[in-house]
């Protein structure tokens, strides 16, 4: 029994129906606990005051925004190489979720920036790369919607995802070259990367990150099911019309 058999749309629907309740419940629990803990149960940071609470939204969203694109890239490759419909539709289903995650990261970052840097927006490399990612999401979704034939749309968007990824990486280097950073990132005391974060902030943050990851997963599974149903409807309709 190979994993690929779940690339059959009907099998996928059956499987997803079984795992979805658990997935949604887990996502709700982790997100809820992480955010509530972060919001109610952590002290203010010495330097940043209560704004540090924004981190429980900002960092998980930023993480998922990047991971969603990465997942779309993998799914696109699977579609191009093995032509499994579920894979293409999963990529399609993930894009709007990634877009919203990007938007949340941008908005919370902007709101955070106002008290910390005195400006909503700065052309810092990290922020700028995120904006570019946002554009790639927009273009990707627009292309899916503009192409009528679903398989052609899957092909074209897959290639766009590939080429776009290359250019996104290129842009990241170009942007770094263009403007050296402002985003405090690892330099601020709560930076997570090197685990220098005080444990009080760290554990709820991890919870929230897991929660956002599970939420992403649940959303993508559900939305993939929706896409499969839409394809099945149009396939049936097309045949009924042909029969007539």
């Amino acid at each position: 029994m190979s994993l690929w058999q779940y690339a059959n749309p009907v099998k996928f629907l059956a499987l997803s129906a079984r795992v979805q309740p658990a997935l949604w419940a887990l996502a709700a629990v982790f997100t809820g606990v992480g955010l509530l803990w972060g919001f109610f149960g952590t002290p203010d940071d010495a330097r940043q005051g209560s704004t540090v609470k924004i981190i429980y939204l900002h960092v998980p969203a930023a993480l998922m925004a990047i991971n969603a694109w990465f997942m779309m890239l993998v799914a696109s490759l699977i579609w191009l190489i093995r032509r499994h419909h579920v894979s293409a539709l999963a990529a399609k289903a993930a894009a709007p979720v990634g877009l919203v995650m990007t938007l949340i990261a941008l908005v919370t970052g902007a709101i955070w920036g106002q008290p910390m840097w005195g400006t909503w927006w700065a052309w810092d490399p990290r922020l700028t790369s995120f904006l570019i990612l946002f554009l790639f999401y927009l273009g990707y979704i627009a292309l899916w919607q503009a192409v009528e034939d679903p398989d052609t749309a899957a092909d074209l968007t897959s290639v766009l995802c590939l080429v776009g990824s290359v250019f996104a990486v290129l842009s990241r280097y170009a942007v770094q070259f263009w403007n050296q950073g402002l985003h405090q990132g690892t330099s601020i005391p709560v930076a997570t990367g090197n685990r220098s974060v005080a444990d009080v902030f760290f554990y709820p943050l991890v919870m929230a990150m897991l929660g956002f990851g599970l939420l992403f997963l649940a959303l993508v599974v559900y939305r993939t099911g929706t896409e499969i149903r839409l394809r099945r409807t149009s396939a049936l309709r097309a045949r009924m019309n042909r029969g007539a």
Partner: protein
Amino acid sequence: MRALLLRDLRLALRAGGGFGLGLAFFLIVVMLVPFSVGPEAQLLQAIAPGVLWLGALLACLLSLDRLLALDLEDGSLELLLTAPLPLEGALAVKALAHWLTTGLPLVLAAPFLGVMLQLAAPGHLWLLISLALGTPALSVIGTFGAALTVGIKRGGLLLSLLVLPLYIPTLIFGAEVARRGAAGLDASTPLLMLAGLTLAVVALMPFAAAAVLRMGLR
């Protein structure tokens, strides 16, 4: 008339219909400005109102060539000409549909982009007002341009060329309102001019557009 408006809106909203693309273009043009002039906040702040107006104008411009050319290509423009609709009214309706699907989203998005370009705080309101007043003029003038170039294969770029100079007065007054507003100066004179210009253009241009269209298709 209502049927035409609904059809145009519906076509714009259908897949591939181009709704939101003007907006996306606006976003991208404004984003590219810091990449090209550099990221210094002060410089960006100084040019922000102008860049936003210019971006809105270009986004408007680019969506113009679908206004009539699509209808010409599939033959529905000729059929509309033989239909019992006054051509002036039909063109005014088409301009309205264009504004609703392009101009209005631009107006609503402009403040967000203003933040990215460090637009000074009082500037936002003035930017919004000037765009809300000015973009209808852009749509109507654009309809005239589209009518002028309708017979020409892939007239898109020619259209831009013809329409851009016609956009200059609107741009000058509109950007002036936004600039003065952002600098905290009195912006009522250019605002009045802008309003007057828009009114005049909306009242008269559909007639010019209809005349030109009749000539072009003869």
